[in-house]
C-alpha cells in the first residue's frame, strides 16, 4: 500500500499541473478555432500535443487495467465488512455500481471521441478540402476529448486503490467544473450551426462522399468492437451534448445512494449543483443565441410581401403598445428597468461607430488628396528643373523622383490594406448589433408595459426575453467594443507610422536633389537682377518709335498719348462756351468717352460741350460735331445729355448723396487716366507687385483715418476729383484727391456750381463738379 499511496500523491501533483496545463490548452484551442487561417505551425504544434496526450492516456489505460482487474473483487470484499450496517451496505454497493457505470460510460465516451477524432476529424483535416470546414463541423471536439480524458483519469485516480469509504467523486467534478463548462459551452453553442452546415454538406455529392467514407471506416471499427450502434455523422456530433446532459443524472443518483455520513456526500451535493448549473448555463446560452438569431434574421431576406403577411393584429397591437409606452416614458419619467452597463456600452458602441465611419471617410479623403498632391508636386519640380538647367547637364534627378512617385503608390496601397480595409470591414459589422439594440428596446418596452399591468405569465415571458437579449448584448457588446477600439487604435497607429514613412521617403527623395542653400531675400535679389537685364534687353529692342507705342498698348498700359494732345476743359473754356452758345446747344458728357476714330475728341464726365452739328461728315446722326471751347471734334451723341444747370445740380446731389458708393467708384475710375502722377506710379508698380500692394494698403489706411474725421464733421468733407488751379484770390487751388471742407454749397449769388471750400486753412471757391463726395470706398 505504501508505495501506491506515494504514487497516488505524485499523481495528485501531476494532476494539478495537468489541470493548469489543460486550461492554457483550452484557450489555445479557442483561439485557434477563431482563426480563419489555420497556421500550419499552429496545427502542427496542436497535433503534437494531442498525440502526447493520447500516448499519456494509453499509458494510463494500461496501468489502469493492471489495477482494475484485481481491484474489482477486492473492493467488493472490502465493502462487505461485518461492522457495516445492512442499509449502509446496500447503499454502498449501489454506489459502487454507479461509480463503475460512471467510469465505464466515461471510458466508452472517451473511446468514441478518440475514434471520432482519429478516424473522422483528422483525416478530414488532412484532406484540406477548401469547402469543407472541419472546424465548424466539430468545433472544439479535440478539447472535449481532452477534458473527457482528464475527467476519466481523475475519476480513476479517485477510485483506484482508495477505500470505498474514502472515495470522493464529487471533488473530481468540482475540480474540473470550470474547464468543463467552458469547453462544453463552446461545443454546444456551435452545434446547431454545425448541424445545418452538415446538412448543406450532405447536399454536395463530393463532400458527402468524403464524409461517408470516414463514417464507413469508423463503422468498421465499431463492428469489430461489436457495437453496431453508430448511425451517421449527426449522431457522432451529438455525443458530447448527450454526455454533458448525463452528468447531472449520474451525480444525482450517486448522491442519493451515498450515505450522508460518507465524506463524499457533501462534495457530491456540490458537484451535482455545479454540473446542473453547467447545463443550465449552456441552455441559457443557446437560448440567448437563438433569440438573437431570430431577431437578427428578422429583416434579412424579407420581401415586402413577407412583411405584409406578417402584419397581423397581434403585431400591430404590439407595435402600437410600444409606441404609447415609449411616449409615456418620454413624457412622465415612467419608472423603467434600467441597465447601466448596457447603457454605457451602447453609448460607447454608437460613438465607436461614428468614429469609425468618420475615420474611413476622412482618411480616404486625405489619401485621395495625398495621391493628388504628391505626384503634382514632383511633376512641377521636374518641370521647373527642366527649364532651370540645360538639357545637357544630366542631373539624374528624374530617377529619384520616379522612385518617390512609386513610394507614394506604395503608401496608398499600404494605407488601403492596413487601415481602410480593416476599418471598412469593421464598419460593416455595426448594423447587426444595431438591429438588436433596437429590438432590445422594444422588448424593454414590452416588459415595462407588462410590469405595469402585472400580467403574470406574459410579463414573465417578456421579461425573460428582454433579460436574455440584454444579457447577450451586454456581454457581446463589451467584447465588440473592446475589439473595435483595439482595431481603431491599431489603424490610427498604422496611419501615423505610414505617414511618418511617407514623409521620410519624400524627404530623402528631395534631399538627394538639394543644391546649395540660398536665402529667400537673395533669391529675389538675383532674380530681379536677371529680370532687369532681360527687360533692358527688350528696351534696346524697342528703340524704334512705333514699337514702343504698340508694345505699351499690348501690355495694357494706359494710353498716355491722349493727354498731351487733349488737355482738359478748364473754366475759361467753360465760360467761353456758356457765353458763346445758347443753352439749347449746350450738352454735357454723361460719362467718359474716348476717341475711337480720327477727329474724335475725348471727353470726361461732366465736361461741357456745345453742339455745332448733330451729324458727322458721313451724315450719321449718332456722331455729333461738338466744341469743347478749345477743340472741335466728333463725339457719340449717346454720351451727351442736354446741359441744364438746375437739373444737373439735382442730379449731382442725387448722385452724391443717394448713390454715393457707386458714384465715387465711377469717379475714381474716370479720374484715373487723367492723373498722370497716379497712373504713372501704379503702372510702374505693376512690375513690382509687392511694393504696389503695400502702397495701396497705405492709401487705404489714410482713407480710413479720413473717414473717421469725415464722420465728425458730418457730410461736408469732399475731395478733389480733378486738380483745380485758382484763377483769382476768390478761388482755391486744389490738388487731386485733396480733401476739402465745404462751408457753403453755393456762391454769394446763389450759383450752386461754385462752392465755398476750405482746405489747409485757406478758403475759396471751387467748381462743384470738380469735387467728389468722400465716402468709405
Amino acid at each position, binding site marked *: 500500500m505504501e508505495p501506491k499511496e506515494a504514487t497516488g500523491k505524485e499523481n495528485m501533483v501531476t494532476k494539478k499541473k495537468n489541470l493548469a496545463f489543460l486550461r492554457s490548452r483550452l484557450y489555445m484551442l479557442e483561439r485557434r478555432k477563431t482563426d480563419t487561417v489555420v497556421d500550419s505551425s499552429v496545427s502542427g504544434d496542436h497535433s503534437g500535443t494531442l498525440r502526447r496526450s493520447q500516448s499519456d492516456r494509453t499509458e494510463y489505460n494500461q496501468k489502469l487495467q493492471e489495477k482494475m482487474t484485481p481491484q474489482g473483487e477486492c473492493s467488493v470484499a472490502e465493502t462487505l465488512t461485518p461492522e457495516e450496517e445492512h442499509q449502509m451496505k446496500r447503499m454502498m454497493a449501489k454506489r459502487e455500481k454507479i461509480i463503475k457505470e460512471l467510469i465505464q460510460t466515461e471510458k466508452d465516451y472517451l473511446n468514441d471521441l478518440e475514434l471520432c477524432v482519429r478516424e473522422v476529424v483528422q483525416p478530414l483535416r488532412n484532406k484540406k478540402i477548401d469547402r469543407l470546414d472541419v472546424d465548424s463541423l466539430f468545433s472544439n471536439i479535440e478539447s472535449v476529448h481532452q477534458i473527457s480524458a482528464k475527467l476519466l483519469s481523475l475519476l480513476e485516480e479517485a477510485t483506484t486503490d482508495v477505500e470505498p469509504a474514502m472515495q470522493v467523486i464529487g471533488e473530481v467534478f468540482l475540480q474540473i467544473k470550470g474547464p468543463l463548462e467552458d469547453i462544453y459551452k463552446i461545443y454546444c453553442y456551435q452545434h446547431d450551426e454545425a448541424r445545418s452546415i452538415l446538412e448543406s454538406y450532405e447536399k454536395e455529392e463530393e463532400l458527402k462522399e468524403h464524409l461517408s467514407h470516414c463514417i464507413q471506416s469508423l463503422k468498421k471499427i465499431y463492428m469489430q468492437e461489436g457495437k453496431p450502434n453508430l448511425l451517421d455523422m449527426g449522431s457522432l456530433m451529438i455525443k458530447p451534448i448527450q454526455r454533458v446532459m448525463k452528468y447531472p443524472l449520474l451525480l444525482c443518483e450517486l448522491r442519493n445512494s451515498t450515505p450522508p455520513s460518507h465524506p463524499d456526500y457533501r462534495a457530491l451535493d456540490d458537484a451535482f449543483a455545479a454540473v446542473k448549473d453547467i447545463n443550465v448555463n449552456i441552455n441559457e446560452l443557446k437560448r440567448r443565441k437563438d433569440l438573437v438569431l431570430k431577431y437578427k434574421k428578422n429583416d434579412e431576406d424579407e420581401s415586402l410581401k413577407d412583411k405584409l403577411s406578417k402584419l397581423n393584429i397581434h403585431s400591430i397591437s404590439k407595435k402600437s403598445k410600444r409606441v404609447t409606452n415609449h411616449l409615456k416614458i418620454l413624457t412622465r419619467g415612467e419608472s423603467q428597468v434600467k441597465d447601466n452597463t448596457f447603457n454605457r456600452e451602447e453609448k460607447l458602441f454608437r460613438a465607436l461607430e461614428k468614429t469609425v465611419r468618420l475615420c474611413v471617410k476622412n482618411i480616404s479623403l486625405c489619401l485621395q488628396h495625398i495621391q493628388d498632391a504628391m505626384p503634382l508636386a514632383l511633376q512641377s519640380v521636374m518641370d521647373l528643373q527642366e527649364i532651370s538647367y540645360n538639357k545637357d547637364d544630366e542631373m539624374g534627378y528624374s530617377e529619384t523622383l520616379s522612385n518617390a512617385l512609386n513610394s507614394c503608390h506604395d503608401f496608398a496601397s499600404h494605407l488601403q490594406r492596413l487601415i481602410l480595409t480593416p476599418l471598412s470591414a469593421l464598419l460593416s459589422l455595426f448594423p447587426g448589433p444595431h438591429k438588436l439594440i433596437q429590438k432590445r428596446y422594444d422588448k424593454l418596452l414590452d416588459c415595462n408595459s407588462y410590469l405595469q399591468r402585472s400580467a403574470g405569465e406574459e410579463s414573465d415571458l417578456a421579461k425573460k426575453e428582454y433579460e436574455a437579449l440584454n444579457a447577450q448584448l451586454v456581454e457581446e457588446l463589451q467584447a465588440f467594443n473592446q475589439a473595435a477600439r483595439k482595431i481603431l487604435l491599431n489603424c490610427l497607429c498604422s496611419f501615423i507610422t505610414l505617414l511618418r514613412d511617407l514623409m521620410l521617403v519624400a524627404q530623402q527623395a528631395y534631399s538627394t536633389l*538639394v543644391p546649395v542653400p540660398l536665402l529667400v531675400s537673395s533669391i529675389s535679389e538675383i532674380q530681379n537682377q536677371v529680370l532687369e537685364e532681360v527687360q533692358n534687353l527688350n528696351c534696346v529692342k524697342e528703340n524704334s518709335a512705333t514699337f514702343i507705342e504698340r508694345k505699351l498698348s499690348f501690355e495694357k498700359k494706359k494710353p498716355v498719348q491722349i493727354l498731351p494732345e487733349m488737355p482738359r476743359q478748364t473754366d475759361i473754356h467753360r465760360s467761353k462756351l456758356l457765353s458763346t452758345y445758347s443753352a439749347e446747344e449746350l450738352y454735357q458728357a454723361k460719362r467718359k468717352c474716348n476717341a475711337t476714330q480720327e477727329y474724335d475728341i475725348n471727353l470726361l464726365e461732366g465736361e461741357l460741350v456745345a453742339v455745332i452739328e448733330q451729324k458727322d461728315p458721313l451724315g450719321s446722326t449718332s456722331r455729333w460735331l461738338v466744341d469743347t471751347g478749345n477743340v472741335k471734334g466728333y463725339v457719340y451723341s449717346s454720351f451727351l445729355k442736354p446741359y441744364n444747370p438746375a437739373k444737373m445740380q439735382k442730379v449731382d446731389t442725387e448722385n452724391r448723396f443717394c448713390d454715393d458708393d457707386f458714384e465715387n467708384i465711377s469717379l475714381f475710375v474716370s479720374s484715373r487716366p487723367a492723373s498722370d502722377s497716379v497712373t504713372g506710379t501704379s503702372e510702374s508698380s505693376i512690375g513690382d507687385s509687392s511694393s504696389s500692394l503695400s502702397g495701396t494698403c497705405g492709401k487705404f489706411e489714410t482713407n480710413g483715418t479720413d473717414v473717421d474725421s469725415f464722420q465728425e464733421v458730418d457730410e461736408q468733407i469732399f475731395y478733389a476729383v480733378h486738380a483745380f488751379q485758382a484763377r483769382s484770390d476768390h478761388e482755391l487751388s486744389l490738388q487731386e484727391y485733396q480733401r476739402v471742407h465745404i462751408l457753403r454749397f453755393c456762391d454769394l449769388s446763389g450759383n450752386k456750381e461754385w462752392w465755398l471750400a476750405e482746405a489747409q486753412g485757406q478758403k475759396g471757391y471751387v467748381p462743384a463738379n470738380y469735387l467728389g463726395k468722400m465716402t468709405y470706398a
Partner: protein
Amino acid sequence: MSWIPFKIGQPKKQIVPKTVERDFEREYGKLQQLEEQTRKLQKDMKKSTDADLAMSKSAVKISLDLLSNPLCEQDQDLLSMVTALDTAMKRMDAFNQEKVNQIQKTVIEPLKKFGSVFPSLNMAVKRREQALQDYRRLQAKVEKYEEKEKTGPVLAKLHQAREELRPVREDFEAKNRQLLEEMPRFYGSRLDYFQPSFESLIRAQVVYYSEMHKIFGDLTQQLDQPGHSDEQRERENEAKLSELRALSIVADD
C-alpha cells in the same frame, strides 16, 4: 514679291538667307517652348500648392472629428493619443501653409514675372515679321521695275522705289539682328533666373518633409508600443475582426 508662286526659269532672290531664317526659327522656337513651359508650370504649381493645402486640411479634419467624438471623453488613452495626433496634424497644416507661402514667393511669383516678358518678345517678333513683309513688298516692286525696260519714267520710279526700300530694309535688318542677338541671351537668362527658384522649391520641400518626419516620428514613439510592426497590427486586426464576426450579435452573411 510675286504672287505667282512658281515662276519657272526665274529663281527668286532670297532676301533673307536661309541660314539666318533657320537660326531665327530655332531661337524663337526655343523661346516659344519656354513660354509654354512657364505658363504650364505656373498653372501646375498653383494646382500643386492647392492640392497640398487640401491635403493638410483633410488631415486636420481627421483628428478634429476624432477629437470631437464623445468616445474620447471616457477613454483617457484614446484621448491622449487623439490629442497628440491633432497637434501633429495642426502643425503639419501650419508647416504646409508656410511651405506654400514660400513656394508662392520664390517660385510662382518669379514665374509670373518671367512670363510677363514674353508678350513683348512676341510683339517684337511680330514687328519683325511686319517689317519683313514690307521689305518683301518693296523689294518685289523694285525688282519689277528692274525687269522693265529702262525708260525714263521707269527709271524714275525705280529710283523712287529704291529710296522707299532702303529705310524699310534697314529697319528689318536692325530688328532681325537685334532679335537674333538677344533671343539667345533671353533664353540663357532663364538659367540664372530659375535656378534659385528651383533650389528654393527643393529646399522648401526638404524642410517641410524633414519637419514632418520629425513630427510623425516623435508621435509614433510617443504612441506606439515598441516593436509593433505593420504586419503585427494587420494580424491583430484580422484576429479581432474574426473575433467580432464570431459574435452572435454580429450579422454574418
